[in-house]
C-alpha cells in the first residue's frame, strides 16, 4: 500500500519538468527521496541552481503534483543541495537523448 503510494507519487511528479533540460524531475534524478507516513508524503528533492527562480517553481510544482494524488492528505517538499546534483543521476536513456553522452 505504502509502496504503491510512493510509486503513484513518483509518477505524478513526472508532470514537473526542468524547463532548461526539458525532462521531468524524476528521470533527471532531482527527486532524492519520497517517504510516506499515513497520508503524508515527504519529498526530498534538488535542482541545478540554488537561487534561481525556476527552483521555487520546481518545489511548488512537486508539491502540487504530489498533493493531487488520491490518498495523499498533505505533501511536504524539502529542497536540498546536498549532495549536489550531477548529470550522472539522470536516467541513462534520457541522458543519451539530452546529448550528454556525446560530450564528457
Amino acid at each position, binding site marked *: 500500500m505504502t509502496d504503491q503510494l510512493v510509486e503513484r507519487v513518483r509518477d505524478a511528479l513526472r*508532470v*514537473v*519538468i526542468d*524547463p*532548461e*533540460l*526539458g525532462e521531468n524531475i524524476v528521470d533527471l534524478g532531482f527527486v532524492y527521496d519520497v517517504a510516506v507516513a499515513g497520508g503524508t508524503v515527504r519529498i526530498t528533492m534538488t*535542482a*541545478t*541552481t*540554488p*537561487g*534561481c*527562480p*525556476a*527552483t*521555487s*517553481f*520546481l*518545489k*511548488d*510544482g*512537486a*508539491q*502540487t*503534483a*504530489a*498533493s*493531487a494524488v488520491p490518498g*495523499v*492528505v*498533505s*505533501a*511536504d517538499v*524539502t*529542497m536540498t543541495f546536498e549532495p549536489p546534483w550531477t*548529470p550522472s543521476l539522470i536516467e541513462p536513456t534520457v541522458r543519451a537523448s*539530452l*546529448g*550528454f553522452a*556525446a*560530450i*564528457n
Partner: protein
Amino acid sequence: MGTRPSLRHHKERRGGPGKIIRMTPGSRRNFFAEPERDDETIMIGGGISRWTMAYFATALTWLLAALALMVAGIGHPATDLAAPDTLVLVHVVCIGWLSLAMCGALFQFVPVLVAKPLFSEGLVLPALGLLTAGLVALLAGFMALGGRLPSAPWLLPLGAVLLVAGFGLVVINLGVTAWLRPTGPARFVLVGLASLCATAAFGTVFAFALAGWAGPTGDAVLARAVPLHAIAGLGGWLTLTAMGVSYRLLSMFMLAPEVEDRQSRLTLAAGALAVVTTVGGGAVTIGFAMGQNVVLSVAAIFGLSCAALYGRDLAGIFRDRKRQLELNTRMAILSFASLAGAAVLGIALVSMGTLTSHSGAFVFLAVFGWLSGLVLAKLYKIIAFLTWLETYGPVMGRAPTPRVQDLVTESRATKWFAIYHLSVWTGTLALLAQEPNAFRVTAAAMTVGVVGIVHEIIRIRRLEDVAPPLRLPAGAAAPHLLFAKS
C-alpha cells in the same frame, strides 16, 4: 523581503478538492529562504524581477536609435571623435543600450549569483525613469553644444545629476545585494559597480565643466580625463560585469562546473588593477600635470592580462561542459572572438603607432562585437527563460508544460545573429579603411540583424512558437510584453 508579490498566490494554494497544502512553518514566514539558519541563509529559489523586461525593451529601443544615427551618418566616422554628434552616439550606445540592458539583467541575476533576494524591488523602476530622463537631458545638452538645439548650458549638468541619481539607485540596490555574499561572479559585479561610480563621477565633472561651472580644476579634468572616463565605463563597468555574469550563465546553461573562485579571482584582480591604474594613476597625472603614457601602458598590460585570463577561464568552462551548445552560446562565442580581435587590433595599432587615428575602429569592435554581441545573445536566452518562468512556472505540477527550447526557433534566429556579427566585422574594416559610406552600409546591415533579433524576441514574449496544445495550459496567463505580471 523574500515574498515577491508575483508569487504570493502560491502561499495558500489549494492542492485538490478540499485539500490545503501544508507548508513547512519556515516557508510560511519567508517563502524563499531556508528558515533555520538565519545568517548563512541562502535563498532556495528567487523571484522574477518585475521590471527587467522594461529595461530590456528600453535598451533595445536605444540600440535601434543608435543604429539609425550610424546609418544616417551622424557622429563618428563622419565627424571627429570628440564632436558633439559623436558624444550623442556614444552615450546612446553606452548608457541607453548597454548600461540599461546590463542593469536589467543584473536585477534578475545578482540575486541568483548570491542566492539572496534583491535589496529593493521598489527602487528598480524609479532608477529606469531617472536614467532615461538623465540620458535625454544629456543628449539634448550635447546637441545644444553642437548647435543642433538652442544654447542651454544647464542641460548637461541637469542630465548628469539625473544620471547620477539613477545610477546611484542601481549601485545601492545591486551593491547591497551582492555585498551580502560576495562569491566569485558577484565580486566582478561589485568591481563593475565601483567602476560605474568612477565613470559617472568623471562624466559629471565634464558636464559641469562644459557648462562653465567647474572652475579651472574642472577644465583641467575635462581636458585630460576623457580617456579615463571611457576606460572606466567600457572596461570597468561594462566589461568586468559582463565577464562576471557570463561565468555563471555559461556554466548554468552548459551544466559545466563553476570556474573556481581562486582562478577567477586572478582574472578579476588583473581587471580591477587595470581600472585602478587608469582612474587612480590617471587622476595623479592630471593633478601633477604629467604625461599619461606610462599609466595607460601599465593599465593596458593589466587589461590584456585580464582578457587572456578570461579566455583561459572560458576555455575551461567549454571543456568541462555537459551539454551541446545552444544558439545563445554559439553566438556568444562570436562575441568572444570580437573581444580577442579587439585585443589583437589594439596591440597592432599601438605597435604601428596609429592607435590615435584608429581608436574609433578599436572602440567600435569592442562595443558592438564584444559587448553588444554578448548582450544580444544573452538577452535572447534570458528572455526565453524568464518568459517561461512567468507563464509556465505557476502551473507546474498541474498541467504539462513546454520546455524553454519550445519558446524559441533557433534556426530562424541564427541568421539574424550571423548577419549582425558579419556586419560588425565589415564595419570595423570600413572604419580602418576610413570609408564612411561603406561604414553606413554595414550599419544598415547591422540594423537588419538587430531588427530580426528584436522580432524573434517579441515572438518569444508572445509565445508564438509554442505548439498550441501546450501554449496556454489551464490556469496560465499570457505574459505582458514589457513587464512580469504579478
